[in-house]
């Protein structure tokens, strides 16, 4: 069996994110890293493989993004993926969620995985929806925000997740697409050896044409959701900030603040 894990390169959490005022796209310059939520998806794949619950032959990391995104694949491989695929093509730049999901599904179609795993959200895009888009194109059943996966009889998963009324348990037949919540596991740290060896593992760079992607459906101009401008939210008065140096004093200040507002 084959598991494909979707991973993305995102600006490092410490980088102040901003928007390019000319295009409305995120300014993605600066330090970048593998989307932290995706490490949980890789870990989930590794645990399925190592536990023997599923006969996993291969874990393949897949990303769509600019040249620099290769580093996210190296990281994914250092965390255990056997090989990786980089969908890179200038024509894909600026694709919206629907176009990105479509493009990724074309790459996945060629791989014919038994299971597609992805993160609960991307640190920059925050749409939580790529999985649902990919699943519909692949015609696979799908579930997002999954925090527990049990394998039943090798071809069926029992998944748990929190939805709007509490926890749901759902049975899903493979092949399937599952986005995992960050509570599903504690991702491992890569060993030095794995980091050193990551660049030697096979990395396929594929173009939109290689993947059979319809050029009319991708890229900023062809995306169906169009950014048409941005504005500033109404300014909220900044709150008061106390740096805790002397805790007794801090607490006095908190109590005085609460007392002024008749909250005690």
């Amino acid at each position: 069996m084959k598991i494909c894990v979707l991973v993305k390169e995102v600006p490092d959490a410490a980088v102040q994110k901003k928007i390019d005022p000319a295009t409305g796209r995120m300014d993605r310059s600066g330090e970048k890293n593998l989307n932290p939520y995706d490490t949980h998806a890789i870990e989930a794949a590794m645990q399925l493989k190592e536990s023997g619950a599923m006969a996993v032959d291969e874990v393949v990391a897949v990303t769509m993004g600019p040249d620099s995104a290769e580093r996210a694949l190296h990281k994914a491989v250092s965390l255990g993926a056997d090989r990786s695929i980089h969908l890179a093509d200038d024509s894909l730049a600026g694709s919206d969620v629907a176009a990105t999901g479509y493009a990724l599904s074309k790459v996945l179609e060629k791989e014919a995985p038994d299971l597609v795993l992805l993160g609960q959200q991307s640190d920059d895009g925050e749409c939580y929806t790529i999985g649902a888009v990919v699943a519909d194109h692949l015609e696979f059943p799908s579930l997002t925000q999954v925090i527990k996966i049990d394998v039943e009889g090798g071809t069926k998963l029992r998944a748990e997740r929190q939805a709007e009324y509490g926890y749901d348990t759902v049975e899903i037949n493979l092949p399937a697409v599952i986005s995992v919540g960050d509570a599903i596991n504690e991702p491992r740290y890569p060993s030095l050896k794995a980091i050193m060896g990551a660049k030697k593992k096979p990395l396929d760079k594929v173009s939109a044409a290689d993947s059979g992607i319809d050029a009319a459906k991708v890229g900023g101009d062809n995306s169906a959701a169009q950014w048409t401008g941005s504005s500033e939210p109404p300014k909220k008065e900044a709150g008061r900030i106390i740096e805790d140096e002397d805790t007794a004093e801090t607490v006095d200040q908190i109590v005085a603040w609460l007392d002024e507002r008749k909250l005690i």
Partner: protein
Amino acid sequence: MANILVYALQYEGAFNKNSLGAVSEAAKLAAEIGGEAHAIVVGQGVSDDLAGTLGNYGATKVLNVEGPEGLAQPVVDAMAAAVAAGDYGYAIFGGGLLGFEVGAGLAARLDAGVAMEITAVRVEGGKLVAERPILGDSAISQISFRSDVGIIISRLNAFEIKETGGTAAVESLSVEFSPFSGQATMITRGEQRGADVDIEGADVLIAGGRGLGAEEGFELCEALATAFGGNSAVAATRAVVDAGWFPYAGQIGQTGKTVAPKLYLAAGISGAIQHKVGMQGAENIVAINKDANAPIFEFSDLGIVGDLNKIMPKLTEAVKAKKGA
């Protein structure tokens, strides 16, 4: 293409509040673009009477579909069938989880544009423009659609519920579900993990997050809530509920409760959007976090940068002393 289709989520005989808000919003927008708001309900044996109550929020027609509940893909099938048979320019979803999944799946099915986390929609030249706050709500993107159908998924509590006293015609729509929709089966739904705590009625909420470090960390929150006394309670983030540290009934946010206490005090909570949407209506927001860059300080009235393990016990003593005085 002037009509708007709204997904109305129902569970155990009641419609989700966010769905009702979406119906109200769609009715308002449809009137502005010269169309009607229609709702679609998918469920097992949903009565036409229940479906018809959506008329009171502005829907003129309700499509009642017999199908599995709690899973997104059957709803995508149903909405795609409704769009194929009707005259829809937009589909609108209230915030939650299923709405995100259904909306995204429908975008894929219809080759449509989708915008999520929408907090406002306005009409420009007869078309809808959606507003999405981004980058921790520091900017707002305006999004319009080039596809035949534009899909709008709102943020939790973005739309106001308005009762109109209207009525809706209920039609049943029979849907042929796609084979892959049937590959997922609900085994148990809506399991309430943990005790049944009440956070919606509280005036003071002491909320704890992953920064508490362990389940035992909640003792600090309980102690402070007890010190406040009266109508106070302890609440939590999804991170700690998923970890099993606190009951689901005490969770604030997108897939939990919406609260508006007089005082909300966060201990070790980062302030993720999905949490914020459930508590931003609080009158006074206080946050204790050791990371000066935590997003929660962006919307706190009083922010304390420091270690909760040092501050909470002393604060509890001070509140007790003040109460005793």
